[in-house]
């Protein structure tokens, strides 16, 4: 059922767009250039995120310090921010007029420009480094402490015996997830890319749908996007499958290695650099937002209410779908954790519109459709957290459950759910926060009296009210983090007292 819904929403909508199109032409030179650039930036972004995440994850896995769990929560913030807010934050630090350039020019150097491929990769690393850190950290945590003790007591190399095999198992999955996310990038690539050199497939789709109304070309480009994702997924599949990334990050193992001064300094440096890289731009969003808070219109309240309800519905949908899919396990999980990432949200939205519009007034369904879309987009992340935890519980307690004849939903409720509270909470927090910050398809469906908070923010930006828009961005950031924190905490309550 769930998998059918995922297929309908991703591939079905593509067919709907195709059905409405008047013929499909070939791809021109411009489209090929866009495809090449899209793949290039996605590979570079994924590689940079993963490579940079390794020292940070290692440092976090073997150090325990005050504020560690707060830091880990905050590190997740860029991932759940609306793109344009994060970009503005980045520019406040790395832009022509940003902190970095101010420092360089004070030191007597020439101002540098981040626009171009470098800027695109920088922004994608900013968004995805936390995700990579979490996935790799999970790999480190999954190595039993006894093995570290054994390797160290035998005088063998921890890196050769334990860490390299673990990384080899985890990295391809992390790389692929981030590659897929960067593949459908749109605003980041264009704003920071510096011009038409940096055109991505998603922009070409936008142009085809919105400007040229060439639905055939849009569908073709969306199919290309799926094709690229399938190739990436297969490649990762052949190298190896990841363990997935999960919660349980507060479980710091006593480690028998990495105690030298050199190693401790390296770890401190890695954590400090990553924290500065991720938190400075966020602080700029907060500072600018404070100034704009007083300019916020009264309509911010209903917008907040709408965004929170959409997030609640979407979270419920995501978690239900993820649990149902985990019950089935197998290939369905693989498909559902990759396919939505590869979908162009504009094509999905347009496809839904084509299907819905002859029957209903699309405006009436705007919030529901938005919740559904957000759930679809959050599903891959929720699945990557929940499915492995589900499998572990089944492996450990499955035979016991079989022996007492516990089956179906009762088995999930009694045996599994209580044991996967932490990953459930983490996944729910992620889904809620992602949904809160997502502009989604609301712009395609909504009438003006149905603004969500991200839509309100865009409208403020679009009518010269930049300060108020920064205020709205701060509200959005706080709401997203709150939602994440509440679910994540809820999942951990009394879990490890």
């Amino acid at each position: 059922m769930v998998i059918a819904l995922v297929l309908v929403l991703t591939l079905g909508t593509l067919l709907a767009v195709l059905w409405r199109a008047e013929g499909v032409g070939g791809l021109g030179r411009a489209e090929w250039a866009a495809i090449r650039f899209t793949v290039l930036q996605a590979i570079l972004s994924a590689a940079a995120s993963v490579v940079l995440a390794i020292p940070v994850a290692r440092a976090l896995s073997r150090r325990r310090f005050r504020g560690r769990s707060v830091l880990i929560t905050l590190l997740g913030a860029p991932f759940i921010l609306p793109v344009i807010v994060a970009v503005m934050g980045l520019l406040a630090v790395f832009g022509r007029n940003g902190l970095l350039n101010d420092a360089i020019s004070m030191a007597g150097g020439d101002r540098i420009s981040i626009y171009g491929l470098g800027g695109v990769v920088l922004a994608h690393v900013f968004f995805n480094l936390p995700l990579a850190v979490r996935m790799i950290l999970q790999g480190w945590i999954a190595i039993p402490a006894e093995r570290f003790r054994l390797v160290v007591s035998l005088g063998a190399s921890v890196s050769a015996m334990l860490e390299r095999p673990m990384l080899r198992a985890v990295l391809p999955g992390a790389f692929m997830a981030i590659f897929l996310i960067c593949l459908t990038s749109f605003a980041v690539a264009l704003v920071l890319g510096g011009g038409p050199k940096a055109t991505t497939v998603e922009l070409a789709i936008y142009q085809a749908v919105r400007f040229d109304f060439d639905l055939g070309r849009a569908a073709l480009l969306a199919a290309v996007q799926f094709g690229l994702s399938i190739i990436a997924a297969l490649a990762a599949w052949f190298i190896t499958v990841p363990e997935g990334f999960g919660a349980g990050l507060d479980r710091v193992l006593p480690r028998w290695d990495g105690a030298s001064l050199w190693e401790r300094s390296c770890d401190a440096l890695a954590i400090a650099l990553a924290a500065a890289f991720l938190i400075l731009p966020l602080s700029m969003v907060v500072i600018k937002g404070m100034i704009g808070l007083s300019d916020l219109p009264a309509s911010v309240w209903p917008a907040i209410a709408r965004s929170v309800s959409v997030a609640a519905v979407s979270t419920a949908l995501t978690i239900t779908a993820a649990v149902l899919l985990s019950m089935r396990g197998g290939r369905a999980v693989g498909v559902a954790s990759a396919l939505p990432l590869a979908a162009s949200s504009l094509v999905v939205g347009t496809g839904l519109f084509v299907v819905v519009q002859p029957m209903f007034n699309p405006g009436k369904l705007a919030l529901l459709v938005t919740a559904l879309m957000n759930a679809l987009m959050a599903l891959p992340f929720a699945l990557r957290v929940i499915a492995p935890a589900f499998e572990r519980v089944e492996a450990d307690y499955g035979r016991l459950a079989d022996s007492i004849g516990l089956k179906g939903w009762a088995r999930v409720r009694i045996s599994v759910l209580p044991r996967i509270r932490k990953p459930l909470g983490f996944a729910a927090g992620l889904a809620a926060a992602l949904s809160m910050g997502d502009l989604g398809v609301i712009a395609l469906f909504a009438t003006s009296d149905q603004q969500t908070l991200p839509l309100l923010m865009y409208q403020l930006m679009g009518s010269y009210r930049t300060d108020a828009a920064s205020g709205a961005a701060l509200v959005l950031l706080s709401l997203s983090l709150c939602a994440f924190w509440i679910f994540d905490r809820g999942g951990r309550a009394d879990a490890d007292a």
Partner: protein
Amino acid sequence: MKTTLTHVAGLCFVATGAIAETSTLTIYTYDGFNSEWGPGPQIEANFEAECACDLEFVAAGDGAAVLSRLKLEGANTDADIVLGLDTNLTADAAATGLFAASGVTAAYDLPIEWSDDTFVPFDWGYFAFVAGKDVEAPTNFRELAASDLKIVIQDPRSSTPGLGLVLWIEAAYGDEAGSIWADLADNIVTVTPGWSEAYGLFLEGEADAVLSYTTSPAYHLIAEGDDSKTSWAFEEGHYMQVEVAAKVASTDVPELADAFLAFMTTEGFQSVIPTTNWMYPAVTPAVGLPEGFETLVTPSTALLLSSEDAAAKSGPAIDAWRAALAQ
């Protein structure tokens, strides 16, 4: 008891009847038009005061997106009027056959002749680079290209002002447009998907100037009391944007739609435009323009390709733009 119930039922019936008699006029427009700060709410109040109808705005992205949505819905659309296309889109819009002539005419205060009887203009403006007054202003594109000034522009493939700039250079330079773009390449900090991002980057100090309208400084002056912004007057002339509305042929309330289009050229609509949409009204209100508008740059020459020319030239012009900037 039974009689009471019958009475209640009767009352309900009368009430529904009353609602059904008030016809609804549905207008598709772009987001900014019907935001809290846009002209929408005030115009809705003004028109409802005289039409005994219910006016409903449906916002659907920007002008190009509004047209896409109408094409997607075809004759099945709920829209009675589409408001907010510009002349770069009207040829394409007319070709769909989804619009009907309204016959509305007025004494327009446009810098150009207006003769289209399907699309009724409601406001207009000149594209221009908006900058701080402290920046030395170039006086034409060549001077800008030769300078070290940094600008941020919008992508013509996803934004109306972006397309406006491409047609501006096309209208001013024709065959030389490609070389102008090539020379401008090192002045362009970046290209954004829409106006909002570009203007945001400019306000953050990422560029010396941004492609916007000659009327943009009026917002800062009138709404924020900030007179530090200006726009650059270019000798080549400035490309115009004329925003129009038209009646959808499949409307079920054609008289009401005509009445709205006629109302659009009167005070009740036009006087709202300057300080909500920050554009020039198509018919200047009797009281004149708001104080502050007299400080704006007035271009010596108004450039505008006919809608047929714009439709025919925009594809090749965008290709030339991309070829020059993708080096």
